[in-house]
């Protein structure tokens, strides 16, 4: 499923590039500038670490709840 999703995304992006050349992607283009300047400061590495921790908790909850 994960591979299928990845391949579908790539196919969609390629198709969009062919059909609407030099056009920004809706929504995503306005979100991506957020990442301009990210990692300019060391704080982002710490935030990334905390996010890994938060996702570890979410993953643990999902894994524990579905393990049986």
């Amino acid at each position: 499923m994960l591979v299928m999703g990845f391949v579908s995304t790539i196919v969609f992006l390629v198709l969009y590039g062919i059909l609407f050349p030099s056009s920004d992607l809706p929504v995503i283009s306005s979100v991506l500038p957020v990442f301009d300047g990210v990692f300019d400061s060391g704080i982002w590495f710490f935030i990334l670490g905390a996010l890994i921790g938060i996702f570890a908790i979410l993953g643990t909850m999902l894994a524990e709840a579905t393990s049986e």
Partner: protein
Amino acid sequence: MGLITAMITFWLITLVVFIMVNRGVWVFTDVSKSMSLFMLEKALGPPIDFVDGKKGSASTTWILQGTLWIIPASLVTFCGLWLSHDPQALHSLTAWGLNPASKSLTTSGILIAVYGSMGMLLIGSSMHIVPELGATSLASEKNATLMSFVWTLAVIVMFVAANNPEIAGVPVMPIATILTNLVLLAVIVNMLLTAASRTRKMPLPAWMMIIGMISAPISILSLALTGSLNLGSGQWLATRFSGTTFFLMVSGALLYGSSKGSGNPLWSRSLAAVTMAGAIISINPAGLIEGEIASDFLGIGTATFEPTRNDILAGSFLLALSLIPIIALSANVLATMRGDDVFMENPDSPGMPEINLAAFMAVPIAIGGLFVHTDYLTGTNELTGIHTSLVLLGLWVVFIPASLGSALSIFPEVSGRNMLSINRSRWAFWLMAGGAFSGIVFTMMADFSDMALIEAAVDEENSTANRIRVLGSVLFYGTVIGSVYHSLNMISGTFRGTPASEEQNLSSTSISSPYMLTKETTVRKILAQREGKLDTVVVPESSTELPGSATEI
């Protein structure tokens, strides 16, 4: 009206409410009891059916959410500390319309820690402690469980309000106040109904938690009745009263947790009474120094702090008086824990190191808070530069460990399972405690350095202080990791932890003294008991088919 008038009104209303609750007047008639129970459950309609009503579910839900809130609380505080030396570190977030600053992040970190973590952990603990000490069950597990999610929503609104006070011209913080008060009202009614159905005399820790909760609306009522809410001194007092509320709840949880975790009876009931009465009579030095936060919560204009001479005198005296309940609490908790020689026998029991740290650090930090508040009250303002760091220190080294430690010590009983790993629990403690203590102490050193330069009227940027702040914020990151460890340990424990019932020892023993030991014991523990002597006879309680004899020591 002056400060002392507001305080007298607060004392009187608290006394009246305590007597009414204790003697069973007003809400405790059968009609009002069934009416209140109806309002808590059936009146809420379909939403109440979304939650489980089995025993312990409310407490577990509140404690789990409270523990999870420690992560964002510590992370936001960490960001606030970082931005104090690198204000442009999060500038890329402006693309999302956010403009985080050190002050707003630190304030929102404090609010999340107080209401999200500490508040939820304490309310969750009270939902176990009050029924347990009253030998009854919680009046409405369903309502209490449901309300935890509304409280979480209120904390999210609070976080938004601290960073963006107005959205479309509407002040956000009063919305959080309305939500928290709605939940608090439901929780108070639930607690009163529980207390009304008690089958034995309820010990003081349970009353501390109930009166602590009720003192929140009483304090605002007292200030409103005396017309002090629009005054600077009244708003300052409102902030102090929130300290009283949380101190009373923390005291109840600490006393119960230290006794439950160590297996010892409470060292002194008189000291517990002193703690409770002293907390109500005095002005607590915990919390932010300005009354601005109270006016934000209430949605009223911030008044200038201009205390009269009488206000200064009465305030300073009542602030100094607060040391008595704090010392009484600290001594009682430490003596209770050591009564069983717990650190020789069971140093790693989850929750006990946190309780020990909180009880140990409460007195020095309270003395620091006393100096800063008296300095502010008298208008000297020479120490106000360190007050944010001191509030953070009190929060992360006393209040959060106290509420978390108490919750950890009762969690196996409410959830039915132990923490997944004692080793991970120990690591989490050291990371949280070490990170918070060292990180904030370094930040405080930088504050002192800045204060010295301001006093000397030096305009240049203080590079030394900035370097120390870098160190302080990086060290504080240990708290973030520790909170993740605690959360992981607790969540995994609820699924795979050893069942708490397995710990119940079938071969419990009792010594020939008023003390009943409820689990297996050692010679060291028996000798550590005040009545345990070399010739103490230990008789096994369990009966077998085999002929028995006295157990040899």
